[in-house]
């Protein structure tokens, strides 16, 4: 156990995870509150294609990753009415984009030397134990930037989320906020892809936030709780995965996050009934 804790790969994972998790918790809270989970999902698939396109073109994976997620986040915000795009449009576009990702994956794995077949899997399902020290530093910096940005716009964004019409009337720039938020979601999706992979990042965005919303009705407490839960789940699952090496870390993170979310249904099972009665 202690032997694993001193390994550099584990320390990198722990450091990166400690910053990526709160970023996902904060962004995820607003994503759930604004009912934009589907957008996060679409972005997560774009992340795969962006990363694969960069690899196939011979660039750094992260360049394609962030360019794709932030770019498409802004695009979705620009296309849809009031920054909330239509499900069918998103669904059709992301199916096509994902297909392109599969195409780039084939280009990458067949055109270059062997032993690159794992690239697709590691982008899809993450490889937090595979981060180098340079990758860790960059991931930490970007994640810290996302946290600060979300906290800066938290108050007006909350206002715009809960009552868009009143917020707009009071002079809150709701459209700009919506766009800025989608750009942050994009950056966050790129970050989370490095930790748990593009397919699983939705869980990291949705589960802590959903649990926090179930546990408290007060917005800022829920925001803090969401970030705290995400960090706790990240630490717990990294330890779990170090303890039981046959469990991939991405699975451990998803399993812990889902278990915590499921537990909140046991803690306050009657909340839906109470709100319906009120």
């Amino acid at each position, binding site marked *: 156990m202690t032997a694993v804790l001193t390994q550099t790969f584990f320390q990198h994972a722990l450091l990166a995870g400690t910053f990526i998790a709160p970023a996902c918790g904060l962004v995820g809270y607003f994503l759930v509150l604004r009912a934009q989970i589907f957008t996060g999902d679409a972005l997560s698939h774009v992340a795969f294609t962006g990363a694969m396109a960069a690899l196939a073109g011979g660039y750094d994976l992260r360049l394609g990753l962030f360019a794709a997620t932030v770019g498409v986040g802004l695009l979705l915000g620009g296309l849809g009415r009031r920054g909330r795009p239509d499900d069918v449009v998103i669904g059709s576009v992301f199916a096509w984009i994902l*297909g392109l990702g599969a195409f780039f994956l084939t280009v990458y794995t067949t055109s270059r030397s062997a032993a690159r077949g794992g690239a697709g899997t590691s982008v899809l399902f993450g490889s937090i134990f595979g981060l180098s020290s340079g990758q860790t530093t960059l991931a930490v910096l970007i994640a810290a930037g996302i946290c600060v940005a979300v906290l800066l716009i938290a108050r007006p964004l909350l206002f715009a989320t809960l009552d868009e019409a009143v917020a707009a009337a009071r002079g809150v720039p709701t459209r700009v906020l919506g766009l800025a938020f989608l750009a942050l979601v994009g950056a966050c999706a790129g970050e989370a892809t490095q930790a748990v992979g593009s*397919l*699983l990042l939705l*869980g990291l965005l*949705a589960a802590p936030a959903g649990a926090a919303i179930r546990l408290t009705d007060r917005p800022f407490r829920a925001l803090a709780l969401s970030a705290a839960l995400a960090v706790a789940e990240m630490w717990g699952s990294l330890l779990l995965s170090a303890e039981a090496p046959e469990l991939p870390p991405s*699975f451990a993170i998803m399993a812990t*996050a889902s278990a915590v979310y499921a537990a909140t249904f046991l803690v306050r099972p009657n909340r839906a009934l109470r709100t319906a009665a009120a």
Partner: protein
Amino acid sequence: MQLASDAALPVFSWNLLNDFQDMWSYLSMVNAFRAGAIVSVVCAVVGWFMVLRRQTFAGHTLSVAAFPGASLATLAGFSLSLGYFGFCVAAALVVAALGRKGRESGAEESAVTGTVQAFALACGYLFISLYKGLLEGPTAMLFGDFLGITTGQVVILAVVGAAVFAVLAVIGRPLLFASVDPQVAAGRGVPVRLLSTLFLVLLGAATAEASQITGTLLVFALMVIPAATAQQLTARPALSLTLSVLLGLAACWAGLIAAYYQPYPLGFFVTAFAFAGYVLAHLPRLGREVLGRVRTPIATGGVA
């Protein structure tokens, strides 16, 4: 960027008769075309109702459940079809049960769906990594592969497809009514809840079928895109349903032909063709919007 080498691949000639004779000399290709036809027809019809009911997110969740199903079947050594259908239909029942309770809280429901979805994918990944014999990794399951389709699988696809159509034939009319106007339908005594559960089960079965062709991640290519294209082109139910079937079939077969001659995954071609149709269908409307935007200021200027 280098393209994948295609030295070992058959060459496409424009003599289509020869091409089909060539392709259909392999049993696996014949099976792939049969399976493709069955799946694209079933998915186009079920997907048409799904787009009408705005349940694409549910459809996506069900498709995700196909991945752990298939990988568990590989790990535990039971039939792939059982893995696909079992998991998708079970997921449909779970979504139906959860959706009924959390009808009021939309935001929370989507958080639950998202979490369940990610957890299902994570389980699939766990099964794949526990089963070490899979050389290709999860890519074939996720992005589609047409080489492994057996005659037995085709028979199962056909039987499930026939069952889906039989149920749809019975509930089609009330389902259409309930989809277009649930409140009025409920007022007229249509069992809206029962229909919605039944439809989710059908959706599960159709998704399981599509997963076996396009891969679990790309089922939208056969389920959503043809239906969305058809509903864009015409508002008449019967016509757009027919159109959706034709579009789905065309995308699937064209994808199979392309995948036979090129080294890239089948799912990519099917999505690319289907999406091209979708974009083409939207071009006239987009053109009108752009023209309208250009014209509007001139018109208001004239009035002022």
